[in-house]
């Protein structure tokens, strides 16, 4: 079996045959509040806590303190311990520039041994790049550049579709190696979270949507109850 990078989310790892393939770029997409940021932070948290892998969280949305405060609300993880210990590096990229983002990634991956990278979110990168052609060129370039480095990357993207039927596919989804879609579906009088592996190059996976919950210990996926 090929070497895997476990997400640490047990059921998801089982569904992926152990985790992501190493060095791949994964897109996590979904509407607001679907749990993208939480999911990505769990990838880094589990990396530091269970697998002794260094993580880098590049936030384009929220400042480090706010982000960690928000995440610490409902979760019983000791994120600060890992941040202070250097196992999780938090970077806020303000005054966004592609060069600065690439400089930062290159430095942490090649010189500080970071193995897990999160870029949250691509939507902000897109909004900060006026010319769509420029965005395309830089995004494709960045993904190609990360392919050659020894790290597994998750980028998030905001999508406005709420249900599976309305899904529309964009360039980003074609460029990356894997796409995970998070949903917060209105079912009767409540919303229910669901996760779908839309694509995962090199991995056999189910095409179903699986319910998940955000609990105190993080994301829990239920493999048996198919929505």
């Amino acid at each position, binding site marked *: 079996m090929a070497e895997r990078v476990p997400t640490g989310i047990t059921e998801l790892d089982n569904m992926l045959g152990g985790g992501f393939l190493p060095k791949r770029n994964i897109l996590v997409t979904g509407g607001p509040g679907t749990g993208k940021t939480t999911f990505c932070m769990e990838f880094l948290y589990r990396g530091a806590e269970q697998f002794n892998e260094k993580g880098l969280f590049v936030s384009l949305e929220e400042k480090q303190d706010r982000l960690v405060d928000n995440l610490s609300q409902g979760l019983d993880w000791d994120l600060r311990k890992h941040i202070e210990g250097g196992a999780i590096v938090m970077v806020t990229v303000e005054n966004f520039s592609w*060069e600065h983002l690439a400089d*930062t990634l290159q430095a942490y991956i090649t010189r500080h041994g970071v193995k897990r990278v999160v870029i949250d979110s691509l939507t902000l990168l897109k909004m900060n790049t006026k010319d769509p052609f420029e965005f395309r060129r830089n995004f494709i370039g960045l993904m190609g550049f990360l392919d050659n480095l020894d790290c597994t990357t998750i980028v998030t993207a905001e999508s406005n579709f709420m249900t599976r039927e309305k899904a529309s596919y964009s360039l980003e989804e074609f460029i990356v190696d894997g796409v995970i879609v998070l949903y917060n579906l209105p079912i009767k009088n409540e919303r229910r979270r669901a996760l779908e592996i839309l694509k995962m190059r090199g991995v056999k996976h189910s095409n179903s949507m699986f319910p998940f919950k955000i609990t105190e210990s993080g994301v829990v996926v239920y493999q048996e109850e198919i929505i």
Partner: protein
Amino acid sequence: MMDVHCYQYLIGKDVGLEKLDGVPGLTKVDGAKVMQAQFGSVTVLVFETGEVRAFIRSSGIEKLKNALPAAGVKIMGLLQAIKAKGVEFDENAVLAAGKPMAFDYLAVKGVRPELEEVVNLDALRELVYAPYSIMPEFQLERNAVQGGENEGRKLAQGKQDKEELNSAIVKYLRDEKLGIGKVGSKADESGQSQYEIQVFTVHESAFAAGMPVVNKALCNFIRGVVRGAYVAFMELENIEVKESHCWGLGDTYCEFEMRVTPM
């Protein structure tokens, strides 16, 4: 590379640049024996040696085909204006003999009055720009930044203060014939940092002097040198170096701003 096409026209004799004052659209390039004109997507450089280079930006070969006749008209107009200033030549013949130049082979005469004698710019540019036709631009830029950072980090060794570090950067650029640097500083107006912004002005950049406007800063290596030096000196990674001015952006010098970004 970058969808820029270069055409070369040879007037065949020296044109005194001072004579060309007042040719419509033609402006003097500071500190260089060259004049520049911008007609939409066409950049024209007129060298003292009588060489005229037109850089035409276009996205794709179809657009280039459309752009060429218009560019030809502009260049013809410019040649006629030069002739009207008393430079004797046959503008029709010069225009007809114009030929495309490989963008990765740019002999740069006169744009580096101080440094050009001492470095083989042709070879350097060939090394830097020729791979653009076979390797992804993004990756090449990363390689250049990384190369620069490695050099910059060495410069930080044993430096006591910022002034000493800045002098080492300027000396390195000069010794390697990469450019003539000058350091200044300004307040960080974004108010996000307690540190001042360090400003490195570089004339005669080996990577950019005389290059056409490609809407892109070209001196990734120098940017890396400055970043690497400061990263190692301050022992911080949150150092942003931005090339705010460059020939590639339409300037006639290059400028780098170094700031410490908030974490």
